[in-house]
């Protein structure tokens, strides 16, 4: 990327940019994306085409009569103009709002959202004053999402990084296939939460439904209330001082710290009888051993 201007990068096709950024199809390591940041880029560790926004530049948009596509296009053009704080009014449960934002941004939704809200994001801080439908924050890479009310199923599916917080209760399959980051639920979560979880941490302050952590590879789940049942290969582990400190810090950060503290939380991890996520592939073993 060194020596290339943002304008030149914008001119390139998605495939050319992906190659330049080092996106490969390496099967063995399981890592398909790495970005070599430009040391000359004044510590601007963002995507080269990401707009440079100013948090103090704020705008409100009424989306009542707009489609999801129009809302997202409008948000992009406003970011291009340097707006760093967007307040989206009257979202009315629309689907797919705020997806694919790859730059820093304060994004506030003054209402409720539908499916696939703010998925595939890498960087913005999002506050949703209402509730969200299924698959909120799916595949998010970094940033924060705070939902003030309830959320639907598959909350934080395949999340890779950042903090995804719901102050209310969420549906089923929360954090399914999560690969990193933190999911915090202030209320209850439904069945099969943490299903096939690979990395990251999930905190449920209330109760968890049946088959919690089913077939999880790795990662940690903390539950403050009752667990209806554990899934296959999910086991209880000892809550350590490090866990307590981390829980206290995270829950305090989002004002979800229970009055009773965190000592009552149950810690769930993978039994690693089904899978061992960090096992080397046979071909890798041959190379190393």
């Amino acid at each position, binding site marked *: 990327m060194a020596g290339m201007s943002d304008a030149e990068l914008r001119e390139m096709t998605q495939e050319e940019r992906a190659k330049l950024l080092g996106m490969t199809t390496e099967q063995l390591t399981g890592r398909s994306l790495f970005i070599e940041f430009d040391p000359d880029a004044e510590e601007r560790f963002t995507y080269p085409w990401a707009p440079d926004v100013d948090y103090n530049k704020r705008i409100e948009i009424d989306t009542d009569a707009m489609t999801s596509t129009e809302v997202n296009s409008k948000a992009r053009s406003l970011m291009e103009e340097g707006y760093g704080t967007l307040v989206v009014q*009257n979202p*009315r*449960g*629309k*689907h797919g709002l705020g997806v694919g934002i790859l730059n820093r941004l304060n994004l506030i939704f003054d*209402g*409720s*959202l*539908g*499916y696939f809200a703010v998925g595939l994001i890498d960087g913005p801080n999002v506050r949703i*004053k*209402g*509730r969200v*439908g*299924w698959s909120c924050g799916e595949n998010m890479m970094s940033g924060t999402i705070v939902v003030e*009310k*309830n959320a*639907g*199923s598959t909350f934080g599916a395949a999340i890779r990084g950042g903090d995804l917080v719901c102050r*209310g*209760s*969420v*549906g*089923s*399959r929360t954090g399914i296939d999560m690969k990193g980051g933190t999911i915090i639920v202030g209320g209850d979560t*439904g*069945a*099969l939460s943490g299903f096939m979880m690979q990395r990251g941490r999930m905190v449920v302050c209330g109760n968890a*439904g*049946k088959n919690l952590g089913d077939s999880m590879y790795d990662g940690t789940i903390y539950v403050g209330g009752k667990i209806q049942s554990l899934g296959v290969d999910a086991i209880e582990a000892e809550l350590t001082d490090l866990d307590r400190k981390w829980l206290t810090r995270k829950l305090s950060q989002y004002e979800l710290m229970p009055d009773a503290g965190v000592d009552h939380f149950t810690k769930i991890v993978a039994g690693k009888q089904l899978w061992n996520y960090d096992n080397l592939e046979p071909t890798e073993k041959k190379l190393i051993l």
Partner: protein
Amino acid sequence: MCGIAGLIHRGKHSNVGFEMTAMLQALKHRGPDSTGFAVYGPPNPGDYIMRVKVAEAEDIDKGHGIMDRIADRIVKVDELLEEHGAKIKSKEQITPYALRYVITHDGETEKMAKQIEEIDGAEILSMGSGLELIKDLGDAAEVSSAYGLDEFDGSHAIGHTRMATESDVDIRSAHPYWAFPYNDVSVVHNGQITNYWIMRREMERKGHRFMSDCDSELLAVYTAHNLANGVTLEESLRRSISEIDGVFTYLVATKDQLGMAKDTMAAKPLVLYESDDLIVMASEEVAIRAILPEEIDTYDPYDEEVRVWQA
């Protein structure tokens, strides 16, 4: 995918036809093939409203004397009603193939209904003192406009937008299903029933009829069977979770109740809003927002959840 919706006003009436139209139009993207409504007006003691179709929508374009055959079928329906002692108070031909009768009848409606359905091409979509079941090809606005649903005063309603996956795009496979022959009971469903044929054969052995190959019809027949045997709606919904396999969320409406059930995997969505005088539910929040634009609290029912509300 399919979209389902339901609403019930407690202790009052409203324009449920208009409300359900708005909700289903917002769910059009979940199922553009056909749209159906089961709306419940004030009960008319002694009267029955019968919605019947005498051909499929696509038959009309096929010609071959279809209009003559439709006319013959309507005459046969009228004759059978008379034969069973039913008095026709009014008869409207809403579309070339869909009719609405208001009849008075003192006897058993089941035998009469069965004989009407023996007429080639005829299917009773609903019968009851308050229920009116309308379904046709097209989106909610089109169906509502064709059947005059924009002004329908009632207490509750359920509806469905269908994306055909396992059976044809036709009216017989559209929802809602009337729980034949149980008056005033209708069902809408989103999901797949994997023990459909086992359950269907079981129901057929018990004497129940199926008009389509759509798995959702099973839920209507299953509910009718339970209700006819003295099982309450809530208990029927609970039993279905263990007796019916697959992924499903479905709604059942009776003359004064609305119920919901979600399967053990909770794989099909439902969002619920509940207040003292109104309960609204739909596959997606966007449908609820179509009639309640103000900020409200909604939630997703969990796996194996069963709820029943009284009008």
